[in-house]
């Protein structure tokens, strides 16, 4: 379970998170929507401790992420994150991209790591690209590779930060399909996305962020069908 309690975070003068409260239960899929600069992506990078927070608490399975005593490297093993920019490691093959962390972080043998990597790469539809270098893949394929790379660590949670925003429109579908598959398999996920119909399809709950505040959260039918907050209505009207 991920518990976010009154989290505040500023970049210099700019307060990007103004007291966020959100609990995500095991197996739940929560999507976060909102305009740019609303703090959605920052929240994700705070959850796995890539960004420090100013006040409040984020607790993952009972471990306080930003406590001094927390071993972040250990914690990150169970929280996978995929970014808008997939950050493929260009000097490694697709297979090596995925085996690197299991081998170096989890200390797996090469054979074990490769077995897991192959399984995950097949899962995201890249079973025939194992020995290819990522620079030879399309953006959508690289993004799916990044998803497999995160999944190879067998995380309990997955965070997706606008993973389709940097893709050509015709490549968005294949990545969304992959995400949908994960959701159906019961992976606990928090997704930041601009794909509204996708959010409506896969989410258990949808949160709307506006200027650092979670203005509204609810079932997708409610958020998209009957938004209560004025800003949610405005936002949804503008993206439709």
């Amino acid at each position, binding site marked *: 379970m991920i518990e976010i309690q009154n989290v505040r975070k500023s970049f210099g003068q700019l307060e990007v998170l103004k007291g966020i409260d959100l609990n995500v239960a095991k197996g739940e899929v929560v999507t976060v929507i909102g305009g740019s600069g609303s703090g959605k992506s920052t929240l994700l990078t705070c959850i*796995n401790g*890539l960004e420090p927070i100013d006040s409040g608490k984020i607790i993952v399975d009972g471990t306080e992420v930003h406590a001094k005593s927390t071993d972040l*490297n*250990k914690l*990150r*093993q169970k929280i*996978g*994150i995929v*970014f808008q*920019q997939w*950050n493929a*490691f*260009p*000097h490694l093959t697709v297979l090596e991209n995925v085996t*690197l*962390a299991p081998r*170096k*972080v989890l200390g797996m043998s090469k054979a074990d790591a490769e077995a897991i990597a192959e399984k995950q790469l097949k899962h995201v539809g890249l079973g025939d690209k194992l020995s290819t*270098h*990522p*620079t*030879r893949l399309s953006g959508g394929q690289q993004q799916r590779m*990044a998803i497999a*790379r*995160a999944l190879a*660590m067998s995380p309990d949670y997955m965070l997706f930060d606008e993973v389709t925003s940097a893709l050509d429109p015709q490549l968005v579908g294949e990545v969304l399909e992959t995400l949908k598959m994960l959701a159906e398999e019961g992976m606990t996920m928090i997704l930041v996305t601009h794909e509204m119909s996708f959010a409506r399809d896969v989410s258990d709950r949808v949160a709307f962020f506006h200027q650092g505040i979670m203005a509204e959260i609810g079932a997708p039918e409610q958020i998209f069908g009957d938004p209560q907050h004025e800003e949610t209505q405005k936002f949804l009207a503008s993206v439709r």
Partner: protein
Amino acid sequence: MFDYTFQWKQVLARLPKMLDGAMVTMEVAVLSMLIGIVLAIVLTVMRRSGSRPLAAFATTWVEVARNTPALFQIYMAHFGIASFGIHFSPFTSLLIGITFNNAGYLAENFRGALKAIPETQTRAGRSLGMTSSQSFRFIILPQMLRIAFLPMTNQMVWAILMTSLGVTVGMNTDLYGVTQDLNALTFRTFELFAIAGVIFYIITKVITLGARLAAARLFRY
């Protein structure tokens, strides 16, 4: 006005000696590069470490290596250090001087190469649970060495050519030192140094071309 008679035969008879010298030259250059690369990586890590004294040490090294003559650096390694009662052989002094120079220049090359690697690469590594040192070793370092590969071959060429400065500290087993000694014996100055020049040219050319070929094969991504 021009009464110098070329006597190539006499000089070519000494070619095997010069080739032996060329081997020593290669030895010094290769060793100085291998150690230089390791030291340059250490200097690079020191500059990124966030520790002021370490960064200052590394920066001073790079500054001195790049902004003083290589001859000065070799001199200091031999005669300078000798003032404190530590005496190195000409071979060792030359090796230290060139290695110092290599490490400084390479560290600067590495700095440039690092700028070409997006910060997000480290972030991707960290988000997979790697420590910052693991991210550096397995993600950043290999990319850095690839980007800096051709500048590194440049430095290798420099290392070969810098060995000629060894004569100033009494080095007489490398190509330039051997040539100088043969000159003192035979006075066939033009022929000897012309041949030495050709050998230098061939060595560096082979290194440059070999490196290009290797780069094309190795770094095709």
